[in-house]
């Protein structure tokens, strides 16, 4: 992850997949295919990756009994419980990060694409770096 940021710009292009706020303030990224990626990766595959990330965050933000119980218990212990165990949201964020690094290794890096964890950007956008190295 660190190596990509040291690339000079002659070799790389950075694009940013922004948030999709059309359904509210829930975390959802635009499921679009940037034209800079034409020819590098299959359109459907890329949008699938974004869709999967969106589904993980949708699960993180869902109002469920589990979240309710977790928050009630945390409140009753004076929020000391939050110091001991990660919340459901944090677990989902970790899962998304793991998924992105797997997809990087599996599909994207071999094609010269690198996707950054959106949490690094404060969940504002997904940064995608494309290297132009010709081997």
């Amino acid at each position, binding site marked *: *992850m*660190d190596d990509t*940021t*040291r690339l000079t*710009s*002659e070799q790389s*292009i*950075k*694009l*940013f997949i922004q*948030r*999709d*706020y*059309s*359904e*509210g*303030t829930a*975390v959802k990224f*635009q*499921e*679009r*295919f*940037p*034209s*800079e990626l034409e020819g590098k990766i299959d359109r459907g595959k890329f*949008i699938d990756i974004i869709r999967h990330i969106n589904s993980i965050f949708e699960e*993180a*933000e*869902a*109002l469920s009994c589990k*979240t*309710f119980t977790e*928050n*009630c218990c945390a*409140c009753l212990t*004076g*929020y000391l419980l939050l110091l001991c165990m*990660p*919340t*459901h*949201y*944090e677990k989902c*964020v*970790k899962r998304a*990060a793991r998924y992105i690094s797997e997809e990087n290794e599996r599909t994207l890096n071999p094609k010269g694409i690198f996707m950054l*964890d959106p*949490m*690094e*950007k*404060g*969940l*504002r*956008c997904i*940064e995608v770096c494309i290297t132009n190295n010709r081997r």
Partner: protein
Amino acid sequence: MSQYVESRHRVFCYGRCITGQNHSIFCLALLLITVTSSLFFVFDCPYLTKELSPLIPVFAAILFLSVICCILRTACTDPGILPRATPDELLYLERTDNTQTVALSGRIMELQMRSGHVLQLKFCQTCRLFRPPRVSHCSLCNACIANFDHHCPWVGNCVGLRNYRYFYLFLFSLSLLCTYIFVFNIVNIVLRSQNNSTVADAIRETPATMAEALICFFSIWSIIGLWSYHTYLICRSVTTNEDIKDTWATPHRGGNQINPFSRGNGLVNCFATLCGPLPPSFLNLRAIVKQENSIPMTVTGTNNNNNNTSDGIVRYFPEENGNYSNQVGNTSGIHSTQQQRYLPRDYA
């Protein structure tokens, strides 16, 4: 370990606490609460325990601890500060916008929501991003805060997405504590005046009780008033900022007047705000940031501008086919101005 936060927030405990800049009123609030409660424990509780029940100081202690816990939690939690955009993002925004005639700072992005509302997202010059819905820039803290409610000087921090529920619980527990102390002050005076002869004698016996009663009496109105106001806001799912600006009252063109962020039912709104899921802090406060030297920026390549208006409004609509057309020519000449290196985020 050095921490670098671009807003006016202060970071403590190696990134575990983040507070606003000015702490004086917060210290005053803490002092007032602690002094009043201490006076209660020292002067009223012994007599009341003897006369009535030993449970009285126990409940008072529980309330006092929850007030302190909530105020510290509100003051030290990141309210939802949005990290500022990197120069790369800015460059990309400039490139991909259709209108090149208006500078980025003057632009407004129109957002068409599926519910029919049309929101206008303004560009924040300090944070260098288009403010997402419900995000507002706090000039005191100099940062954009998610679900910005207000900047509370009593807690020395902004109240936003991530600490609103602690703020609400603080108001609730403080209302209870104030009422509790006030009621038992009155009970104390009444009991003493029954045992002695006059109220004046009773007051002379415990002057501290009168002092506490006065403090509580004057604070109760504002605290309970504020708590009721926030209960009302929570049921409507409206922030203080939106209520003051009357955001959902005036009709927008193309939309209706109902708040698009309300879930329709007051109870569900309460549940969502107070017990809903919370994201972790957007700032990676425990990482080491190293800034490398900046390279001057030059943009080459022509931007083919088709269509669109030159009134500075960028329109974004959710697209069915997911296709996005990029108007930019070649990108080979673009240099990045600044690179920041972050350690991989520690989720523990």
